[in-house]
């Protein structure tokens, strides 16, 4: 194998890993700050300037907590569950195209760890594996609240994945490709899919909220009824892993939303630049979009109250899926019409 390619991918993986963790870390900080601002408070401001070292302090605290395992818990599953959650959360970032190619040391470097032809399927697949972390965690804890949380999480994810998948199919219809790189390239400039497919965007966004177990769909861990749900029995860094996985998921979801509907790294007026500068700016723009969507996730969380579980199922099966299907049908007919099938 080409050592250069190997090195380049290795470096990219390490950078991506660090960025994912860093973003997840600072999402916790941002979440508290945003919550505070929305509630006319100040938020964490003691650790370092503006409280910027708060995530480090939290992490340190997590490490020094007692690593507790309930007596009747299934030890092995109990330990593996946070690992699965974390693994799945991190692995999806591999197929996301972070920017156009960069030229360094005489090499044409692709800013995508794995160029998979079926990138979007890969992401959908791994996201649905993500439910295993929660399921196993809730089951292994041997606690009824955890089990409730786990069951809710799995039924919710399965219900919303359907609508999400249909929304994705509409995008795939538009581009004719499952490759995330192709999908991004098809949205050159300001030619973003959100303008062509606003309904699909809303459906995808709502489902992304549900997939990440974020409010108003955080029924898997609603504190008021399930005392934390699937991670009730977890403590120390195992709990930390679950929370980290949640924030990493949010990061990846924001990235996927940006890729599918907001042009990924494309921005209006990008034709005026070329080469590495373009690539750098693209990466910057992409991250700006991601941060914006993370903010929107939080914005929604601190605005809307939680759904009741029957309402959640009702919304998922009776509203989202039919709307997504009709949207898909209309898109398909329009595309067929434009391609001249009816002539």
């Amino acid at each position, binding site marked *: 194998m080409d050592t250069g390619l190997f090195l380049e991918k290795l470096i990219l993986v390490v950078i991506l890993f660090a960025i994912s963790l860093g973003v997840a870390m600072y999402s916790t900080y941002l979440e508290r700050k945003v919550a505070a601002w*929305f509630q*006319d408070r*100040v938020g964490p*401001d003691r650790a370092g300037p503006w409280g910027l070292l708060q995530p480090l302090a939290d992490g340190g605290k997590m490490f020094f907590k007692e690593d507790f395992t309930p007596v009747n818990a299934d030890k092995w599953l109990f330990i593996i569950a946070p690992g699965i959650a974390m693994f799945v959360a991190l692995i999806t970032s591999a197929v996301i195209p972070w920017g156009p190619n960069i030229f360094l040391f005489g090499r044409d470097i692709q800013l995508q760890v794995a160029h998979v032809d079926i990138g979007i399927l890969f992401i959908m697949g791994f996201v649905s594996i993500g439910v295993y972390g929660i399921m196993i965690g809730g089951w292994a804890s041997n606690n009824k609240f955890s089990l409730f949380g786990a069951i809710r999480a799995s039924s919710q994810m399965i219900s919303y994945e359907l609508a999400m998948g249909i929304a994705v199919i509409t995008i795939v219809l538009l581009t004719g490709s499952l490759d995330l790189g192709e999908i991004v390239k098809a949205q050159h400039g300001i030619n973003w899919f959100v303008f062509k497919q606003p309904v699909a965007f809303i459906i995808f966004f709502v489902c992304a909220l549900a997939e990440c177990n974020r409010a108003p769909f955080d029924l898997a861990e609603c504190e008021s009824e399930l005392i934390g749900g699937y991670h009730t029995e977890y403590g120390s860094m195992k709990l930390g892993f679950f929370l980290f996985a949640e924030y990493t998921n949010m990061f990846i979801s924001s990235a996927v939303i940006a890729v599918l509907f907001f042009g990924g790294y494309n921005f209006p007026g990008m034709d005026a630049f070329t080469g590495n500068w373009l690539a750098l700016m693209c990466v910057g723009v992409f991250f700006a979009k991601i941060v914006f969507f993370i903010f929107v996730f939080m*914005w929604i969380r601190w*605005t809307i109250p939680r759904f009741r579980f029957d309402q959640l199922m009702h919304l998922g099966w009776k509203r989202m899926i039919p709307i997504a299907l009709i949207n898909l049908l209309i898109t398909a007919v329009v595309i067929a019409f434009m391609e001249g099938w009816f002539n």
Partner: protein
Amino acid sequence: MQSLTNRSKMVSNKKMSFVEKLYLPAIFGGMLITFKHLFKKHNTLKYPEQTKKFAPVYRGQHVLKRDEEGRENCTACGLCAVACPAEAITMVAGERKKGEESLYREEKYAETYEINMLRCIFCGLCEEACPKEAIFLTDRLVPSQFERNEFIMGKDRLVEDVNNRIDITARQLTGKRGEI
């Protein structure tokens, strides 16, 4: 049924209209409201650095006053203990000996005087009952302690220091006693 106030409202169970069923307008409305709060001034007081000013009539930890010559005002009459609804005050009276005139103003004085700060409800009735203007509530907070009996404050902590008088002018009732 006749309502007691004019604030009561009939519960409405009307069906949601189509637009309401979409949830989205309501959600965007809510998000607009929260967004406006981003730019509002916060009300947080950064506590250890900033503290809130107490109202002049704040009722905090008691002080047993001395007069201008530094003699204790209290004459152990026990009226404060009688007035106290929480029964927080106990005292033992003693007779002033010769040579102690510079210590106690009256011939009878309190040998021990204790207020149990855990019982006290800071109502200020002791202050009102006192005929000698000896006990006052101040704007000081009762410090937190690790032991319960630390909260039973004796004279060592209640009587003010001669050189370090405690300002109670805001609550000073001198000359106004008769009016109350």
